């Protein structure tokens, strides 16, 4: 992994602002689920905040995102308003998808969030389709496609990356490598030493980066975006990261060696990024103001989600086809 220079101050503040919103949202979700206020299956994102925040800081609102069930960080980083997202997580009519998608199927075209899939690896072929449309329309958009290391063991990854490279599609495959596919360590189930190797094997421009380092991750993202916009084709970014709360909430992470978890927590990207801001003369008061603003957003969004009405039961007959299904 190459050393990179520190990103600009404004960029780091931007990344921190997104990442802190994600971190606080994750904490709040876990609290509310624990307290029985929300009954959902939740895939915690604590530890992976910086990867998405740096990636999304490098693209525009109009660019597309395809992500997966562990996607809260990607969705918030891309800019989905917290109220809409929280309401969807709670299954309410005011949610992004009228309560018909839920946490694993968030869609919000206004911010470019086109698909969130619950099927490992499935987003990759769809991301190609979005990118194909951009290529044909010459609209200059790029598509960011997020998935984990586990997804590189499924066929769709290989089919999708091959096609993207053959057609030189403007897509960035962001593999957030948190070293575990569900409860299985990468070393147990993945034949290659890195995901980058797999990208190279398929002929893609492929890079590995410390995804928890905001500046390095941002530099890799920016380069991939410029490469795609210039018409050169896709990039696979293998962003090394870690998740602190297991596969899904309630998972005790018993399969992660203690020392590995302790080391990962020492390397927690959030306090590191915060310290970096202080180091480049962002004042404690300014950082605290960002955190307080995020906290207020989450407070409002979570209360809104709890108070908002559920969709009427009949809603199941709408949006199946273009016409309403008869009762």
């Amino acid at each position: 992994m190459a050393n990179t220079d520190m990103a600009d101050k404004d960029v780091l503040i931007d990344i921190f602002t997104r990442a802190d919103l994600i971190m606080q949202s994750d904490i709040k979700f876990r609290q509310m689920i624990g307290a029985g206020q929300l009954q959902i299956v939740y895939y915690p994102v604590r530890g992976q905040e910086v990867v998405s925040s740096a990636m999304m800081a490098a693209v525009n609102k109009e660019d597309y995102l395809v992500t997966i069930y562990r996607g809260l960080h990607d969705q918030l980083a891309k800019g989905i308003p917290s109220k809409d997202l929280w309401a969807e997580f709670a299954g309410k009519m005011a949610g992004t998808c009228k309560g018909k998608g839920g946490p694993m199927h968030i869609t919000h075209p206004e911010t470019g969030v086109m698909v969130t899939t619950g099927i490992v690896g499935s987003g990759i072929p769809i991301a190609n389709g979005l990118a194909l449309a951009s290529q044909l329309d010459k609209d200059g958009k790029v598509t960011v496609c997020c998935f984990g290391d586990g997804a590189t063991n499924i066929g769709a990854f290989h089919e999708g990356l091959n096609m993207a490279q053959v057609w030189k599609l403007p897509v960035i495959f962001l593999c957030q490598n948190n070293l575990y596919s569900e409860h299985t360590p990468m070393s147990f189930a993945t034949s290659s030493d890195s995901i980058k190797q797999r990208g190279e094997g398929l002929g893609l421009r492929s890079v590995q980066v410390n995804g928890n380092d905001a500046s390095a991750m941002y530099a890799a993202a920016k380069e991939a975006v410029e490469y795609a916009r210039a018409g050169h084709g896709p990039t696979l970014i293998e962003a090394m990261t870690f998740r602190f709360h297991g596969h899904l909430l309630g998972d005790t992470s018993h399969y992660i060696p203690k020392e590995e978890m302790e080391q990962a927590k020492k390397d927690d990207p959030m306090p590191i990024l915060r310290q970096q801001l202080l180091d480049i003369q962002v004042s404690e008061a300014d950082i605290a103001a960002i955190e307080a603003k995020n906290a207020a957003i989450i407070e409002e969004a979570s209360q809104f989600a709890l108070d908002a009405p559920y969709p009427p039961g009949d809603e199941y007959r709408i949006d199946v086809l273009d016409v309403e299904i008869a009762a």
Partner: protein
Amino acid sequence: MTDKSEKPKEIMFAQACNMALAKAMADDPKVILLGEDIADEQGGGVFKVTLGLSEKFGTDRVRSTPISEQAIVGAAVGSAMVGYKPVAEIMLMNFITVAMDQIVNHAAKLRFMSGGQTTVPLTIRTTTGAGTGLGGQHSDMLEAWLAHVPGLKVVAASNPADAYGLLYSSIMDPNPVIFIENTPGYFVKGPAPAPDHVVPLGKASVPREGTDITLIGYGSSISRCHGAADNLAKDGISCEIVDLRTIAPFDEETVLKSVAKTRAAVVVHEAVRNFGVGAEISSRIHEELFSELKAPVGRVGSGYAPVPFSPAIEKAWMFNQDDVEREVHKILG
């Protein structure tokens, strides 16, 4: 006016599909084709259905793909979500099994799961059908699987003119549509449609009127129904034929209207009889018309086995016209 002595122009089923694709592409620049070997440089498709189209519309819009069914359907799903009307060719229906995740979990559900924010107006063209010795993995009729998935439309034409009109409608439909072609039927000829001929989805046709029994089918079964009806007429039995044209959602109104008149019905399809489309249609008839029926609705389909290779076994396994006639005699006693 055409001179009446002149033979009406006939075209083959495969040609009709080619003409519908060409018309859709000419009418709407957002129609694109994706599939294995479909561009002219690769032969215009294994069955030549896309022949000449890349020459006419360019390889940006008529794209030969890697042998990657998931990636083909995925590319269709993604481009459909942002304004395109992609037509993906999955060469043979058995290869759809490889892309079922994209079809069932994504194409069919994204409109619903997004609360209507995104739509997937794609068409998947695929061909299949037994009777030519292609064996167990190149001939299956899997329409019942797809018809069972909410959010998908499933279409099968029985003649070239319908193929032309239905394929055009499928491409222009705002929902994902699976358009099933019939491999042995590609070379069957029929009257050529007028260029503006359109067949709406969800509407069955009644190509033969009758009074004693209704034969309900689609795609390759319709020619068997006609053959059976001709023979049965010699025994004094008058058959009405309902060609569903759209399998899902099927035209209940036309089916029920016909059976209410004849008070007897047989559903005929090439697919394996067990758990087939015939079960659903038969059920709906019983639910609505039970007390008026002369006898329970009959079903004709192929045997409960993979499609066999040897012509001797394939013939025994496959539904045929005799089965239809036998079933009608059984029902009418």
